[in-house]
């Protein structure tokens, strides 16, 4: 875990719509090291998926527009790469699992059709037809689908939700990517199936030494899946910490609120949620975007964006409570 694989630097994304410009990402800063599993947690609409779409350069534009920032993969800026070069990165460099396997798979092609084209165009080396078939069946077996030869000829509709998500996992890993982006891969699944898919993913990732960015809204899932966790709120990363450190010692008031709002198996009722709701991006609050909902808001919170405070080697937080008061 020494080498930096991916680093996102000061990424700003705006969406142009009729009403004006939505400032959806407001300076994202994150790093993924080789072999590391990074979790990205946040509520709906906080920009988790948008930031990852930028990494793969699949952000629909218009309306999306990257207005500033860099995304360095192996030290080279993805944002300045051409289509051809990007094609090489997608697949063998970075691949993605989407939330809804039903939407991610094309209903009119068989699993085999879709899987073989991924392998054919996404692999580093060029393979013969036979090799492609062997690898396709191999990855289907790797994701523990029963009878992979049969599944190869099935259409997505013939599979259950859990099986479809396994196929998506197979597809994402078939090209042996260095970085896997998993975008809420288990949100649409039942809890027992989620458990199976998470275990499978964890096993495969370990075996292939793949680096992972795991997007989720569930703190419980991220605790099982990540070594390092970033918490996002309204287009900003507000806290980043080693997993154990984050759960033992959350610093940002928003992270606190989220953890308290979570119903616990140990009982004891549910704390009041966080007051208010996620701000509109058309006219976001000044300074720290969380300040209108923050119980500990201070004067400077509404005036300037809090800097990222490095409280320890395992913990960064963007909040004025922990320093960075730029008093005049």
């Amino acid at each position, binding site marked *: 875990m020494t080498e930096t694989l991916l680093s996102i630097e000061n990424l700003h994304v705006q969406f142009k719509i009729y009403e004006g410009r939505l400032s959806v990402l407001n300076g994202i800063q994150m790093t993924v090291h080789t072999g590391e599993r990074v979790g990205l947690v946040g509520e709906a609409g906080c920009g988790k998926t948008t930031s990852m779409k930028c990494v793969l350069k699949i952000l629909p534009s218009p309306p999306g527009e990257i207005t500033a920032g860099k995304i360095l993969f192996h030290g080279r800026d993805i944002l300045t790469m051409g289509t051809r070069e990007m094609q090489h990165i997608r697949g063998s460099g970075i691949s993605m699992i989407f939330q809804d396997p039903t939407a991610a798979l094309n209903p009119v092609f068989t699993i085999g059709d879709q899987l073989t084209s991924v392998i054919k165009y996404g692999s580093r080396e060029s393979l013969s037809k036979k090799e492609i078939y062997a690898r396709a069946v191999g990855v289907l077996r790797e994701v523990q689908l029963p009878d992979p030869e049969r599944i190869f000829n099935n259409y997505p509709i013939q599979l259950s939700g859990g099986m479809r998500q396994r196929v998506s996992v197979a597809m994402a890993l078939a090209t042996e990517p260095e970085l896997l982006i998993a975008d809420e891969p288990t949100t649409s699944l*039942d809890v027992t199936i989620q458990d199976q898919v998470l275990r499978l993913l964890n096993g495969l990732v370990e075996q292939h030494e793949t680096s992972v960015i795991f997007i989720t809204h569930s703190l419980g899932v991220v605790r099982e899946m990540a070594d390092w966790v970033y918490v996002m709120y309204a287009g900003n990363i507000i806290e980043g910490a080693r997993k154990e450190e984050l759960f033992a010692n959350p610093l940002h008031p928003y992270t606190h609120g989220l953890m308290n709002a979570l119903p616990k198996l140990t009982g004891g009722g549910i704390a*009041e949620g966080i007051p208010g709701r996620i701000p509109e991006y058309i006219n976001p609050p000044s300074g720290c975007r969380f300040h209108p909902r923050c119980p500990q808001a201070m004067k400077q919170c509404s005036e300037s964006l809090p800097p990222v405070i490095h409280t320890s080697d395992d913990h960064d937080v963007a909040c004025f409570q922990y320093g960075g008061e730029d008093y005049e």
Partner: protein
Amino acid sequence: MSSKLLGVDKLQKFFITSQGTVRAVDQVSFSIMEGETLGLVGESGSGKSTVAYTVVGLHSPTSGKITFEDRDISKSVSKRPKELKKSIQIVFQDPGTSLNSRRTIQQILELPLKVHHLGNSRDRKERVVELLERVELPADYMYKSPHSLGGGERQMVAIARALATGPKLIILDEPTSALDVSIQAKIINMLIKFQEEMNLSYLFITHDLSLMRNVATRVAIMYLGKICEVAETSEFFASPIHPYTKMLLSSIPVVSEEEEAMKPAKITSEGEIPSPVNVPPGCGFHTRCTVVAGGICSQEIPEMLEVEPGHFVRCHLYPSPLPVDSIAKE
């Protein structure tokens, strides 16, 4: 002390389709006391929503009996007396589709009042304001339309609508599963407050066991159209019995070591819920069960047994003490 409000006895609901008969709900029995919350938990396809819809009257039961305050209501909703409809209300999962997007909030909240002839137009308007206040929304929201509200606010409106007629029983069909946790917390706390204030009973349908730990009086687990375990919440979480319950509990992702300790020793989850068109013979769970008691599981449907006072389970492993205690917590 409190009396029985809703009784469901051997309820069956089958749907005839071209693929065969879907046995969505099969021999389900439970009751709800006044002021109680019964959590009905299950995976998708377990039939929990069908139970909810049958109780509220959206489906008529194939067989079995539903009683409300000792009155038989197991007929179709068109034959159900209006005052009973007033007493049983439902909140659906997705407020985006359960609120008519072409109506204003005022029209939405007024409709149940009109249907049940509660007050004249001025009274109704006052009542709408009062309902909005109850769910902590500003009164001027009544001029808005649902799509201009956030997901949490919409669900509050749906709850206000359910409260409009002064019901005794509210069926909550996954009311917070489409919402973020911070909003879920607010809605749940509000629901608990209403329950205390108005002595409401809730049938809470959900797939979230952690949530039920904090909300329910009793928890019932459904699998493939049948209830497989029911118990008081504290008892249920302290000593879960059914192998399926244990599998569910051990699959929950949690955020602390204390919670981790609550989970039964890891029963790894396997397999998927079979199709309710093609229910396996015997115990519906035997295809995924890690402690199958023997041939009997795939042949005979287990009976519901009371293993502890108030703790019912449907499994061939009980009540006879069996050597298969490897599944127990130690």
